């Protein structure tokens, strides 16, 4: 008889002195960790990559050691029933274990890999787990209708799951777990691959689910999600550093000793002296800042010292003899097979040595545009010139010596046994001399901060580490133009800083950098110029301070974007000239 579960069966999660060590590893992934999540609570988990967030997610979902083998001490219980038997480190046997594990659901970072890939509508996809649980068809219909309504995705019900955006797929993935009647929901970086609009939607969804009584544990980097939690656990090397309201747990006092920066909004709340419980309330922060605001004749001071910590990468020394190169697109149109016009007569000129961030929601044409820079796509109409050279007829591998392209998914290019060999692959293809290649490999590995991993197998690193290997492997080709596709996805604070430092070092060396990014703070902090795209056209183009200015916020929203926190608060303060650098804002209030 299939087990019947009530969709309103609410259970709480208790982690008690949990220690986990993977087989073959010499250090614990989690150490003596204790945590409770009650029904109706949304609890966050933050920390650097490799701090134990994913291990905690797998353990609390009952996947360790039953599916992912590891030595376990301590216990995880759902409503008092053990997911992992205390002391033995083994999951209980047979049906009892199955019954227990079906009360907790887990959502992973990659939306595409969570779908069954056999269903042709969202409604059927939501039914997949219910079929496996043996739920009668009539009840399936009820549950599916309830989930579609609760998640606000009724409009997706009859659409094919594979044709949805990443954000929509992730909401379907969450819905498929919720439909199974899980009282406890665990999410492992659910917004890692989503754009800001989708991240916000997932955050709202989790808040609503918790309000409906679900116990939720979410491991995240996104401050928009962590800010919605009731409390936040910060992990470091598998240990709990603190469990507190997010405004305190993610504050400078906790994070800076760990080498992490607090989210900008939290830093501004600290600056304004706002209670940590109100750290995500921008109106409160703005009001508090205004009270402390030191105006000179009603205007902000013109002297704006910045106090950004010095970056670890200070310079990039060009090794190949290359001319500096800019980019010129004239009337660039691209139409895919099937007639979809992804670019509509784009005119764009990027000067040599400029750093440009391209932003816009999924489907706005960003990736189509940059794929023309190295010949991955050919114009349907118009032209592309790099360094004054029309690239229309050039092969991709020929253009690789001029334009470096770092793809979003590092696993699409890594195949060598060691990081060093992987990084040397590009220079070898360019047939550079041994000495030149060796210098470039050394410099690229250092720029990406991979000295300690030089002889490691790239696949022994986590995804953020592999992304840095992919970056180094393209840097080692010393291109005149570097294109980065979502470089900060899945990176923690230090990883984002590392990539930002590489961008600035390349610019100092006269290289041109073009990046697609959903990370508005990264775009504002590290790039000279922001290009905003919508439906295959450029709708705004200028320095960050202009693009993110108050009068543009509606235009940004029209392509699914929100300005960075500093810009939003500057807007509330009515600052003129406008400020987007948190350090500048700090200097204004005399901090």
């Amino acid at each position, binding site marked *: 008889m299939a087990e019947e579960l009530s969709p309103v069966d609410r259970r709480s999660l208790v982690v008690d002195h949990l220690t986990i060590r993977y087989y073959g590893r010499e250090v614990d992934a989690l150490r003596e960790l204790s945590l409770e999540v009650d029904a109706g609570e949304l609890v966050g988990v933050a920390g650097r990559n490799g701090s134990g967030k994913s291990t905690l997610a797998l353990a609390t979902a009952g996947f360790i050691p039953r599916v992912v083998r590891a030595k376990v001490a301590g216990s995880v219980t759902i409503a008092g029933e053990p997911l992992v038997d205390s002391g033995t480190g083994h999951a209980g046997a047979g049906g009892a274990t199955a019954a227990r594990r079906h009360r907790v659901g887990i959502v992973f970072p990659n939306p595409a890999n969570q779908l069954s890939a056999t*269903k042709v509508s969202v409604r059927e996809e939501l039914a997949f787990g219910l*079929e496996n649980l043996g739920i009668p068809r009539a009840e399936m219909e009820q549950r599916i209708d309830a989930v579609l309504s609760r998640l606000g995705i009724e409009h997706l019900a009859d659409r094919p799951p594979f044709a949805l955006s990443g954000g929509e797929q992730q909401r379907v993935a969450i819905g498929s777990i919720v439909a199974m009647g899980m009282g406890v929901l665990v999410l492992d970086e659910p917004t890692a691959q989503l754009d800001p609009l989708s991240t916000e939607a997932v955050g709202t969804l989790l808040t609503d689910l918790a309000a409906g009584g679900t116990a939720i544990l979410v491991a995240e980097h996104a401050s928009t999600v962590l800010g919605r939690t009731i409390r936040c656990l910060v992990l470091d090397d598998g240990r709990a550093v603190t469990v507190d309201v997010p405004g305190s747990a993610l504050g400078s006092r906790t994070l800076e000793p760990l080498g992490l920066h607090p989210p900008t909004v939290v830093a501004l709340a600290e600056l304004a002296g706002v209670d940590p419980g109100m750290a995500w309330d921008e109106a409160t922060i703005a009001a508090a800042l205004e009270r402390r605001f030191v105006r000179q004749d009603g205007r902000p001071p013109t002297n704006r010292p910045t106090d950004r910590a010095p970056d670890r990468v200070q310079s990039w020394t060009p090794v190949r003899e290359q001319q500096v190169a800019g980019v010129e697109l004239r009337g660039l149109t691209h139409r895919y097979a099937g007639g979809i016009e992804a670019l509509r007569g784009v005119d764009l000129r990027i000067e040599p040595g400029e750093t440009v961030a391209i932003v816009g929601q999924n489907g706005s044409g960003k990736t189509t545009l940059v794929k023309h820079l190295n010949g991955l796509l050919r114009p349907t109409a118009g032209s592309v010139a790099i360094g004054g050279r029309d690239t229309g007829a050039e092969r991709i*591998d020929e253009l*690789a010596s001029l334009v470096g392209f770092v*793809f979003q998914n590092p696993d*699409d290019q890594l*195949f060598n046994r060691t990081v060093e060999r992987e990084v040397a692959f590009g220079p070898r293809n360019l047939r550079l001399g041994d000495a030149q290649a060796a210098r470039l490999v050394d410099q690229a590995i250092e720029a990406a901060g991979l000295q300690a991993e030089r002889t490691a197998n790239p696949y022994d690193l986590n995804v953020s580490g592999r992304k840095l290997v992919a970056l180094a492997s393209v840097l080692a080709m010393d291109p005149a133009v570097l294109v980065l596709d979502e470089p900060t996805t899945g990176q923690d604070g230090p990883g984002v800083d590392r990539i930002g430092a590489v961008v600035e070092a390349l610019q100092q060396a006269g290289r041109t950098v073009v990046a697609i990014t959903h990370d508005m703070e990264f775009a504002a902090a590290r790039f000279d110029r922001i290009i905003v795209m919508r439906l295959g056209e450029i709708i705004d183009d200028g320095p960050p301070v202009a693009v993110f200015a108050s009068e543009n916020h509606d235009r940004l929203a029209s392509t699914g974007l929100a300005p960075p926190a500093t810009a939003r608060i500057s807007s509330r303060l009515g600052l003129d000239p406008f400020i987007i650098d948190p350090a500048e804002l700090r200097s204004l209030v005399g901090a």
Partner: protein
Amino acid sequence: MNEAMGFFVPGSGWLHRLHPHPKLLLVLWGVLAPFLLPIWTLPGLVALAILAALSAGLGRRYLRNLAIGTLPICISILLVNGFFFPGATDFLLTAGPFNLTREGLAFGLPIAGRVVAAVAVTVAFVMSTRPDDLMEALIQRGTNPKLAFVVLSAIQTIPRMLDKANRILEAQQARGVRASGSWAARGRAILPLLGPLVIGSLIDVRERSLALEARAFGAEGIRTAYRVVEARPVDNTVSVAAKVLLVGLIVIVPLRVVGLIGG
């Protein structure tokens, strides 16, 4: 083409309406018949398959898929047999050190014809059958649900792998790998293409297996079905007819062995 739909093309022709189970039995017959029936039946079998597909509205896309599915292998069969048939003496054409022989072609043509006939019915089947309908139909007829899912997933791996291979090729070309031109250049591109394809697929398998587990794929107990594929009376009739045809094929084999049926 996409993952869940595979090679299926939406339509309302009689092949689309036919229940997947009798259709599968007919395909089984259509794949076995070219290899078990006399050689003189081959043109008729090929014509029958193509006519069936066209009458069901599969159209030019069917003919294109059939050409893509058969031309490379048929050309290979004819070239290898035509030029390298052992002991052949009747030369039709000489190209340098190579001779095209009548014996080789006579041997290769029936093989190529059988391949075309078998592929012709298979292409008609995959273009007219929703993969999830096939899975549910098989489960309703007693196939283990997990086995049916695994088989379906394996079929759908093809478009997923093609898509992944394209992305990897782009990423490696962007690092200076030349994927066109000389055979040596193409050969050098194999490892950078295959390495990430294999490793990435293993990572995908791990992520997908965890996600399936999260969806209670390994749950004990009786599975229920959301999508029900109804069988009409005509489907049952076709099913019986297909079974009779399959039995007929099995009977023909010993008759051919003892020489009562030639060709």
